[in-house]
């Protein structure tokens, strides 16, 4: 019952996605009804046909011909309606998954960052791909199966009752036996399946870890130890799989046995009736073929129920995304900023109980440089999040040229920012598409100019297909430095009045780094820029330095005033600098 309620709830929600395919839905149901009718009628006709064969010399050929003609018509109708039913139910389920995925991708573009940051992308992807698949298959194919199964059972019962009440009573009486057997096995196996999937997950995780560190394993001669760890889980999996596989493979034989028992009973009762001539031999054969068919829908339905349970669970995960509140898109649609940024008594925290930025004020004139300094994980990205309105402040205001940025639409605000992050994300596609990422309509000259400004044009020309070279997923075929230069070229094309630069260069060699620095400084000329800084020179040249430590803003000022304060900044600066000096000596 709980399943039924869950199912109807989900089904109601899917109504919108079903509507464009409602013809398919209707056709599926109508055809499945036809299929059932034909499937039921053909054995009846066969029975009648047998009844025309009374014995040697006594066959009623005229009747038989008529019956055979009907069987022919029925089989053709059956084939046609079966094909339409399957094709339509597939269209239905493909259509629904198509629209669900389109809705999900739209949703992803509009969900608040706070949601996306707290939901691992692997999990989100599996909801978009696998869960949607399970919904459309489980829910709709399951629906068709359930429908045909139920009509089949009802139809069989009606026809049998018309032929002989006694025999149908026997069949119905044995029904609970079949259902109980199926239910018993399903319940038992689901426990083992769960255990199996837990252990399989454990093994996958272990394999992932071991394969990832395979070179370390070999470098230290740890093979034996690793193999022992592997075997331990491998054996565990063997036991779990053995149980799950064996018990689940009992379902079919068990239900088949019940089926055979019903068949035997029907055979006995019918033959006893036939011997007294209460039914004909043809009717006897009808009963037998029904007794064979009758249990089949029960098996199918018990399979469908597991699928439905699964799809209801999947749809909850999908609807959770669809139900999440979107970012609002209100506010001015276009705005051309000067580049004066001010933060006025800004407070922000990701989690209610963990204060992060408290009562923070800052005034930045057009063209100024702000460096953000601090050890890794100090919350530098939080500031970027607030400036770009990936997150909104809790109290206080951030304003752009004196305008509260919340009066602008996010899109209008972001058009004024250029951003290069340490995490160099590139899309799979050509080099050209990546540079023109924010400006699809950019001309060839503009793209090449941007690449030249970012000092990457030369490299691109060396690639096998130049600007048309495909970049693998996440730029796997490029070095870190090349990726970063491409990200810079991407911003170069637009050159908005304000910049956010995360200039991490730890894994880049010095000569590429020099190129990147040059590209950065060319970009920053005359623009308001916020720089997450690692290099002493950038820091010293900044107009204002924000010093952050474990999520808090601890100091603020220019290089000289901060050194005079002799606080955390001075300590940080001295440790780096004196380290370099000590090495120099």
């Amino acid at each position, binding site marked *: 019952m709980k399943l039924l309620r869950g199912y109807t709830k989900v089904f109601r929600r899917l109504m919108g996605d079903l509507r464009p395919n409602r013809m398919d839905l209707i056709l599926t149901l109508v055809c499945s009804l036809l299929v059932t009718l034909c499937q039921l009628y053909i054995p009846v006709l066969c029975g009648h*046909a047998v009844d025309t*064969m009374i014995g040697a010399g*006594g066959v009623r*050929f005229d009747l*038989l011909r008529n019956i*055979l003609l009907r*069987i022919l018509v029925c*089989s053709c109708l059956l084939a046609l309606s079966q094909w339409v039913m399957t094709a339509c139910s597939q*269209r239905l389920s*493909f259509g629904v998954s198509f629209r669900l*995925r*389109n809705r999900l*991708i739209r949703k*992803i*573009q509009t969900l608040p960052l706070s949601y996306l940051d707290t939901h691992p*992308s692997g999990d989100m*992807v599996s909801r978009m*791909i696998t869960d949607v698949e399970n919904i459309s298959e489980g829910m709709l194919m399951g629906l068709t199966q359930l429908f045909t199964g139920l009509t089949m059972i009802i139809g069989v019962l009606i026809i049998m009752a018309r032929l002989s009440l006694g025999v149908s009573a026997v069949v119905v009486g044995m029904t609970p036996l079949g259902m109980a057997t199926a239910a018993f096995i399903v319940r038992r196996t689901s426990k083992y399946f769960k255990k199996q999937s837990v252990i399989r997950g454990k093994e996958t*995780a272990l*394999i992932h870890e*071991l394969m990832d560190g395979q070179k*370390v394993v*070999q470098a230290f*001669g740890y*093979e034996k130890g690793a193999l022992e760890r*592997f075997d331990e889980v491998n054996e565990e999996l*063997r036991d779990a799989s*053995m149980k799950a*596989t*064996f018990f689940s493979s009992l379902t079919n*034989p*068990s239900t088949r*046995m019940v089926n055979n028992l019903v*068949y*035997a009973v029907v*055979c*006995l009762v019918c*033959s006893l009736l036939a*011997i007294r001539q209460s039914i004909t*031999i043809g009717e*006897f054969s009808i009963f037998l*073929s029904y007794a064979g068919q009758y249990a089949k829908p029960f098996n199918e339905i018990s399979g469908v129920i597991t699928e439905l349970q699964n799809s209801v669970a999947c749809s909850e995960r999908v609807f959770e995304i669809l139900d999440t509140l979107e970012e609002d898109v209100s506010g001015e649609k276009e705005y051309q900023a000067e580049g004066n940024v001010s933060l006025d008594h800004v407070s922000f925290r990701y989690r209610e109980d963990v204060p992060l930025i408290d009562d923070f004020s800052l005034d930045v004139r057009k063209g100024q440089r702000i460096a953000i300094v601090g050890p890794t994980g100090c919350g530098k990205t939080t500031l970027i999040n607030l400036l770009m309105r990936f997150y909104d402040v809790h109290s206080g205001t951030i304003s752009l040229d004196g305008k509260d940025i919340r009066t602008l639409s996010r899109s209008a605000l*972001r058009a004024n920012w250029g*951003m290069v992050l340490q995490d160099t*994300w590139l899309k799979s596609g050509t080099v050209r598409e990546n540079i023109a*990422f*924010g400006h699809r309509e950019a001309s060839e000259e503009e793209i090449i100019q941007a690449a030249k400004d970012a000092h990457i044009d030369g490299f691109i020309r060396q690639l096998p297909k130049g600007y048309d070279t495909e970049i693998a*997923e996440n730029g796997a075929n490029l*070095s870190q*430095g090349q990726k970063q230069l491409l990200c810079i070229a991407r911003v170069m094309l*637009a050159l908005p009045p304000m910049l956010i630069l995360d200039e991490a260069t730890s*894994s880049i*060699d*010095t000569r590429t780094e020099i190129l990147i620095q040059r590209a950065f400084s060319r970009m920053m000329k005359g623009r308001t820029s916020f720089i997450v800084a690692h*290099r002493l020179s950038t820091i010293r040249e900044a107009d204002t330095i924000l010093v952050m430590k474990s999520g808090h803003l601890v100091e603020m000022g220019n290089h000289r005033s901060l050194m005079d304060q002799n606080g955390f900044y001075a300590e940080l600066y001295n440790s780096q600098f004196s*380290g*370099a000096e*000590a*090495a*120099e000596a």
Partner: protein
Amino acid sequence: MKYLLRKLKPFRKESILAPAFKMLEAMFDLLVPMVVAYVIDSGVRVQDQPVLYRGFVMLILMAIVGLACSFTAQYFSAKAAIGSTTALRHDLYAHIQTLSFRDQDRIGVSTLMTRLTADILQVQNGVNLFLRLFLRSPFIVFGALIMAFSISSRISLIFLGGIALLFLCVIVIMRITGKGFRDIQKYMDKLTLLSRENLEGVRVIRAFRAEDAEEQSFREQNQDMQKQQFRTGRVSALLGPLTGVTVNLCIILILHLGAGQVNGGILLSGQVVALVNYMNQILVELVKLANLVVTLSKASASMNRVSQILDTCPGMQYPESSSSASTDSDTAVSFDHVSLRYSESGEASLRNLTFQVRRGETLGIIGGTGCGKTSLVSLIPRFYDATEGEVCLGGRNVRSYARGEIIRKVGVVMQRPHLFQGTIRSNLTLGCPDADDTVLWEALEQAQAAEFVREKKGGLDAEVEQEGRNLSGGQKQRLTIARALINKPEVLILDDASSALDYATDAALRRNLSSLSWPCTVILVSQRTATIQQADRILVMDHGQIVGQGTHSALLRDCPLYREIHESQYQEGEAE
């Protein structure tokens, strides 16, 4: 296949008994229509009631014995399938461990993982289904044919034609849809990729206001996939109706011919019923057979992929034991005209390198990304074999050492600090499981890691999560350094292993390394001149070649590339 058969050998009994019992069960299934015919023709028709009871008892017995048979068969087949693939998985993993780094690079980590997980699972399902169904379904199909023959040889010709037609239907449709399903899978992979990109690049997409464009390209893929799904779906939906209509046509023919024979007194009507039943049984088994073929072809493709890995011979041979030639040579490491290319056709990663490092010296190696620094040092512990030239360790060619000996002599700290789930202790003792606490603490002290380990709850037994997620980058680096020190190696290689350490810690670490309690040659790879400038000798690498060799001050004077690197890193310092 040979690997699988070898693994199935211990399960020979199970592999034979499972199909045998399955066949027994099938035999009972085949007998059912005969019993029914017997009941009709010898019981009902001649009013012989005891025959009816006999028939009933036979049916019940067959149902019960059939159940027992199939339980036994399922048990044996599960045991054989799971047992053999568990052993196969063990073998595969053990084999992967013998692969050289070159093989591993070529094959790729993610491929190896798929082989170990998804592919073996596929094989397992294939074996299981094979043992259970492969004999049963054909047996029923042909058994039904034979039964039909025994009833009426003329009518059985219809069976023959029908079966041929059914096989044709199944094969043709599976051929056509096979490609379609593969295409759908490709679209699905692309959609997965796009979803992942959209999620991981969300900040960039929004910063560049590319939401609509990204959504559009997803929609287009989705649309294409839907079209392909419709196209393939229409054809695959034909399978059921076509086979069904074929069977029904056969039944019509059977009834028609049967009627004639009944009229002629050759057949009894109960036998006609039996023939119809056999035709229906064939349909059911044929559908199962079609599914089986799909699963088996998937499984055999997986097995081939697994075999490819197992066929890969370890690309590197080690002598059983080192020739005990004297190792008192004065040079710790020497390269003599060494070149390296990772693949036959690829560009050389190292070109004609010649240099020597004396025992106890410190060697620094510097150069830009991709210049061959890591390639150079990975030749010393024989992670790779040089394509040309000779690499010597302690005066002897590295190829003359037994594997265990190289591992003991050379300690390596790789660029990416990799830790395993477990404890700090289990991570430190990878190479020598019986090192005692004093040794561990000594190594930790030297690696500047003792302090934070002491602060951890549990000390040496503090938990390390997968990938060392609960440790900072700097902590991980220091632990991997300590790990390499446990064995007291003669040669210690640090491949950019202190990049996450601050200057002060880095300097202290280097001081410790220069005063180890045993004679140790240290090879430092770095991108920062600060890290290596105190080395006895520095190699400057560019595009796989050595472009400068000497001390810090000599290189500053003579090597323009070195000077350029140094100045780019120290301009701030000098300006002060």
